[in-house]
């Protein structure tokens, strides 16, 4: 398994060591989520090779890594798109019209209802649970940065802008980039320009 590491470059393997070093001695396993994010930042999702590589870095089995990876919704084992559009439909958003926004997101992104990703691989659309911004309901996030008080029209414009290659400024914070780059941020790597 260790003979052909294919996902992480030598530079990223060095980063992986820095990530595991954040945790107390003998507690490398704590780094499993950030390392899964690191692999996701290369592949846009986590493949079986990625799972193996994380296992190798942590000295645990691939099955143990897979058990973790399948538990958390932000670790994506299937292709998920460059831009993941999440629409919260939990109660506060539902009370303010989230269902229409979700339908509009599906239409605009070309992701069939019940499907996960557009044919060209550009968009994923997901129905999301509460995103803790209920004052701004209905909430839409793109790669998990927020666009407040959306409407079907606004989410359609948002998707079309992304398709044109624009990265519309979120309601708060800055756009983390595509899904791979967002995963890099979540791995806690120090891309200086990504820190506010």
């Amino acid at each position: 398994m260790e003979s052909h590491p294919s996902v992480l470059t030598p530079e990223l393997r060095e980063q992986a060591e820095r990530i595991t070093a954040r945790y107390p001695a003998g507690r490398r396993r704590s780094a499993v989520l950030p390392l899964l994010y690191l692999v996701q930042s290369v592949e846009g999702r986590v493949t079986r090779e990625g799972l193996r590589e994380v296992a190798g870095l942590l000295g645990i089995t691939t099955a143990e890594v897979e058990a973790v990876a399948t538990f958390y919704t932000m670790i994506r084992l299937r292709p998920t798109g460059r831009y993941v559009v999440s629409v919260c439909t939990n109660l506060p958003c539902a009370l303010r019209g989230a269902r229409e926004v979700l339908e509009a997101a599906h239409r605009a992104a070309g992701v069939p209802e019940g499907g996960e990703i557009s044919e060209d691989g550009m968009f994923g659309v997901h129905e999301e649970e509460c995103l803790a911004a209920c004052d701004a309901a209905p909430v839409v996030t793109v790669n998990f940065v927020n666009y407040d008080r959306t409407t079907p029209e606004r989410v359609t414009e948002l998707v079309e802008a992304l398709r044109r290659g624009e990265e519309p400024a979120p309601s708060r914070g800055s756009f983390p980039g595509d899904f791979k780059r967002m995963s890099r941020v979540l791995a806690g790597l120090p891309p200086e320009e990504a820190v506010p």
Partner: protein
Amino acid sequence: MSDRPIVLTGRWGEPDTVWMDRYLETGGYRGLRKALKMTPAEVIEEVKASGLRGRGGAGFPTGVKWSFVPQDTGKPTYLVVNFDESEPGTFNNRELVERDPHQFLEGAIIAAYAVQSHTAFIYCRGEFVWPGMILERIVAEAYDEGFLGKDILGTGYDLDVVIHRGAGAYICGEETALLSSLEGYRGQPRLRPPFPAVEGLYASPTLINNVETLANVPHVLEKGADWFKGFGSEKSPGTKIFSVSGKVERPGNYEAPLGTTAREVIEELAGGVPGGKRLKAWTPGGSSTPFLTDQHLDVHLDFEEVQAAGSLLGTGAIMVCDETDCMVEVTRRLTQFYAHESCGKCTPCREGTWWGVRVLGRIEAGYGRQEDLKLLDDLGKNMLFKAFCALADGAVSPIASSLKFFHDEYERHIGERRCPVTGKSPGISSEMGKERTDVPHAAEEPEWIDMSEVLR
């Protein structure tokens, strides 16, 4: 309204996130300076004397929790900040971090000093991409200013902070599940005892506090326990940030003393229900706290009174439904949340939430049976207090309370085979008024399954 005391949101008028310079200019890190001149035991005593109670939902006295962390066990002691805010309707931790992040960090450093911890973890919800970036910056700022690292402010006290991002799992807000997650496992809760204070992270003594709780701490230290007790009610001192959402004019976070009436928060601060409609139901503290109704608007929002009224203060997340909202639909949607977020460890929760969605879904769609109400009641009894953690109990809250206060509405859904609130016909969800396929059994009459037999 203008003379409402403000403790936690004093810097929220600032146009930008309050970074280190501005935080120091406005009195920041005075509480920490004062704490570091006291002994850890004195710090704990001050917090105990303030009566501060945990804001994450349980309301346990903060100083008492700190005093439970044993010293001299020969193991390291850890502080874990719970920033996995995910309870539906709750968004005050997020805004605390987005606007004035050093406030809770200062509180965390004081807490770590009090329990003599040298390593603190901030467990940041995975979806909080931007708040997490803020954390990275403020932690770096705190190292630069000498509030973190070796020999903090020349006192000889050392503390390192590690930011750990979650990856999308409501259950990780439950403190033992959070610890499992932080150790690199699936986020499943553990049996207590042993409590985290004694055997928490890496089986070492661990203090876990919520962001809002810690945001109070610098104020308690700087201005003293007596000052803090000047706000709120006797057993629930201080202020609380209430997150108000749903059918109100001005959804948002509002800081008010504990013990403020629900009417004041919902009607005065959040502007009341729009369009002159009648308020139908509200939660005092997120979806895991039982619904109350317009009959309970004069309840004082503190831990005791809300409990006496039959609910819980929880996280202070007030979700408001008006008279046009169908309570069966509302309950089905919340139950769907618990079914999605159940970690699967305990059978009553894993199966109960799943079945709950199905039974509620069929009532909503006009295919309910008279027996279903008894069935839902049984379901709740088979879930409540029967699982490792409180997720199952939380899931019962909307079901049991909506059955209690809106029994007629359920009966009419079943009797009239349609929604009496929206008037929609069988097979059609009231949501959108369109047929939908994601509500189980919405499309056709389902096979009858006697769940009470399955659960026994």
